[in-house]
């Protein structure tokens, strides 16, 4: 730190993009290739900078102080007799620091060369008022006859009044079942399951219909007080007996 510009360097903390950037600026002050730099000198300069900043009561961001602590450690490790057990060795740490500085420096220089190029809109210009190219899109509409007919079917189905016709099926009506259950009840003395009230030989959908109708008939007759119902639990056999 023996240059006239040092004062700004000491004070203008906002100008540095972090401790590595500051180290790089200090390193470049050594005016040698970064590969030949004296890490020890660099550490001294950095620590001196941080101390001066403290004397001036400048607030240093924490990462500058962390770097200062690490560099102080590096300095002592480089100066003290080497402990062969210690890894990484201080030389390795110093070399890594130098490699990082080289990389940052390379990118800084690349950035400077990049922005100094002939840039579009600053140094070279495109045509300001191009006629422009036009793509005229012409739609060729596609539809198939099936789509058309199906669409009409859809509309018709949607808007036409719908009449529901229930196909004729073999069923036992409720009236029939009431008639049948009340007649049979008169002939039974003991509790009988509801299945014994169904017509003999009934099967398939007709049996299901007869069972459902007979059940509703049993409920209706119970309401009229003409039958008693008994069932131990849900889904257990349902017994019927005429009221006494």
């Amino acid at each position: 730190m023996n240059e006239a510009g040092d004062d700004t360097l000491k004070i203008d903390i906002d100008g540095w993009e972090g401790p590595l950037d500051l180290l790089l600026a200090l390193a470049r002050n050594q005016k040698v290739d970064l590969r030949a730099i004296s890490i020890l000198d660099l550490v001294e300069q950095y620590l001196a900078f941080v101390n001066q900043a403290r004397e001036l009561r400048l607030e240093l961001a924490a990462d500058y102080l962390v770097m200062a602590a690490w560099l102080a450690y590096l300095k002592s490790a480089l100066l003290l007799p080497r402990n062969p057990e210690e890894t990484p060795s201080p030389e390795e740490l110093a070399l890594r620091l130098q490699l990082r500085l080289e990389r940052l420096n390379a990118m800084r220089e690349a950035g400077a060369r990049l922005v100094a190029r002939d840039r579009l809109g600053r140094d070279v210009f495109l045509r300001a008022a191009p006629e422009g190219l036009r793509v005229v899109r012409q739609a060729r509409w596609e539809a198939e006859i099936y789509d058309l007919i199906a669409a009409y079917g859809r509309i018709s189905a949607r808007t036409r009044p719908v009449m529901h016709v229930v196909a004729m099926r073999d069923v036992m009506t409720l009236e029939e079942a009431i008639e049948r259950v009340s007649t049979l009840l008169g002939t039974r003395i003991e509790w009988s399951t509801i299945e014994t009230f169904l017509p003999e030989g009934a099967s398939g959908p007709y049996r299901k219909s007869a069972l459902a109708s007979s059940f509703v008939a049993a409920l209706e007759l119970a309401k009229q007080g003409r039958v008693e119902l008994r069932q131990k639990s849900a889904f257990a056999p349902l017994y019927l007996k005429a009221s006494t």
Partner: protein
Amino acid sequence: MIPAPDDLSRAVEAVLFAAEHPLSIEELRAHVGQDADVRGALTALEALYAGRGIELARRGDRWHFQTAADLAHLLRRDREESRKLSRAGIETLAIIAYHEPVTRAEIEAIRGVQISKGTIDVLMEAGWVRPAGRREVPGRPLTYATTAGFLSHFGLASRRDLPGIDDLKAAGLLDPVDLAFETMESETVTEDE
């Protein structure tokens, strides 16, 4: 300082190229130098560009570059894109085909859904539907009918070839099973163009 002729024509060329509007000789001079022989440079450029894809053109007392007039067709490119008719489009077309001539209000009554402005436009653009005179009722609404292009696109000899309601029923196209689903869909889906 007067630039050498060739440098000057390069300069005028670049300034004209980058300009936002045609430039007068005075405007050009403001860029390339007050004492420059801009007129001479323009003449040189005119000759240089003659017969090329770009030409130097004079509009009144202003100059600019433009593409050669005979190449204008290259700047415009037509691209035909095949597009599928939307559901609203196909339904509207079906109603027009089955009920023509039919007004917009009638189409909406049959569909049970409003149709957007663009739907009939698309059908007319496709060349399948045409205005077919006005109905002599209050408001004199326009009616629509199908075209010969419609018949040929769908491979029909005449509108009588369209299957009737009974045919549709026989083909299962009036299947009520779909009804609830269809209704639901047409209510959820907002009218597409």
